[in-house]
């Protein structure tokens, strides 16, 4: 039986890892390559790197990080943030990442998903979705809207429609981030996660809000998520991946226990 994946997410700026609380006040907590190796040995099923480097002329720093991470771990990892075109995708994949995550660029230019899937295969293309709860309207019938710029810009695109459209275009997986829950450590957005996960046949990684192992249990059961992204709860040592997996296993969730 397929295990539910537990995926630490590392935000990287200028080659160093950070963790943003609601995308503000990022604080520096270390070296991404060392952290990748640590999480690999600690039982992470996969890793996500999110490049939040502001200036595009420093992108080569991230490529070097990707190269070093690829040499340090034997599990898949994806890289997102600032992926704007096929060249950006190619650079990250050739440096050794298994997957690229496209977010803003895909919203602005949906054909990028199709082009990436055609050139590199659907399994490489993760659609990153930043979503905010809004009033139900004619434009946003699901009540969840696509946002960019860390939630500051509303796109007028319905999140449910966009998830299905991205699957049609060839995305192999969705990483679904609730801007409302992100950084709160108060639990994932279960309604949103379940709605999206049930609407598509590709796997959905839930993101935003993880604070306790019970939050993961909720999103992997009631939320119908296939995988759960975690950050602060492990970055600050509150829980180990072993503790989280033991808890989930005891509650009947299939997780990978031997590594």
């Amino acid at each position, binding site marked *: *039986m*397929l*295990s*539910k*994946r537990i995926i630490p997410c590392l935000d990287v700026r200028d080659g160093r890892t950070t963790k943003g609380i609601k995308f503000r006040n990022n604080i520096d907590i270390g070296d991404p390559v060392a952290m990748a190796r640590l999480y*690999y040995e600690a039982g992470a*099923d*996969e890793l996500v790197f999110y490049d939040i480097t502001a200036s595009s002329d420093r992108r080569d720093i991230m490529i070097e990080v990707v190269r070093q991470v*690829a*040499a340090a771990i*034997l*599990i*898949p990892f994806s890289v997102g943030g600032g992926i704007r075109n096929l060249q950006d995708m190619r650079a990250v*994949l*050739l*440096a*050794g990442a*298994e997957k690229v995550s496209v977010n803003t660029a895909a919203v602005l230019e949906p054909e990028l998903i199709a082009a990436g899937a055609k050139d*590199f*295969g*659907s*399994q*490489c293309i993760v659609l990153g979705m930043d979503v905010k709860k809004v009033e139900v309207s004619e434009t946003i019938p699901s009540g969840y809207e696509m946002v960019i710029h860390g939630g500051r810009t509303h796109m007028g695109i319905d999140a449910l429609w966009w998830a299905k459209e991205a699957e049609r275009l060839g995305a*192999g*997986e969705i990483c679904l981030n609730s801007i409302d829950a992100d950084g709160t450590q108060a639990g994932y957005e279960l309604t949103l996660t379940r709605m999206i996960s049930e609407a598509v*046949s*590709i*796997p959905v990684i839930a993101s935003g809000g993880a604070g306790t192992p019970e939050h993961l249990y909720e999103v992997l059961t009631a939320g119908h998520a*296939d*995988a759960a992204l975690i950050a602060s709860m492990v970055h600050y040592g509150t829980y180990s991946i072993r503790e989280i997996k033991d808890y989930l296993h005891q509650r009947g969730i299939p997780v*990978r*226990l*031997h*590594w």
Partner: protein
Amino acid sequence: MVVIIDYRAGNLTSVVRSLKALGVNGEVTQDPAVVEKATRIVFPGVGAAGTAMAILRELKLDQALRTAFEAGTPILGICLGAQVVLDYSEENDNTPCLGLIPGSTRALPRQPGLKIPHMGWNSVRFLQAHPLFQELPENAEYYFVHSYYPAPAEERMVLGVTEHGVTFPSVMGRRNLVATQFHPEKSGRFGLQLLENFLRWDGRWQD
């Protein structure tokens, strides 16, 4: 020389790195002559069967693989490389494939609530005691990402099975050829153990 076949089907970096971790500098090649002279062949790949077969034919790697198989060279197919060794694939309108193992590659049946592609870690139930499985515990899991699966015509060529909606063959073997639907190069230390077992294997197996 351990040869890794490059037929422009995905990234070979992780395969190359895993072999290097085991002390082997694999030669990545598109040259059929190099493939025919290899002492051992890793045949990886991700993507679609139609494109893959077209490129294998264009580069004349299809014939080189058949020659190497007939010569008894140990071959390890991975993911797409484990699918195109069969007679044909349902993907891209019944693509004719290499025919090193009788059978076909089929689409994972869609079911309500079942996610396709089958992506993530899953276990393998070993059906036979192949040298490839040495020192691998039964509870180990391996990393999968695929929407099609290999279905050999003969049960004796199925070495291991995995569950995802259906029970499908995840490891196959025929003579000097073994093939895994999962990615040993992305499957942590157990995947690395499997690669090491392959590097030690003399290619002998009674199927």
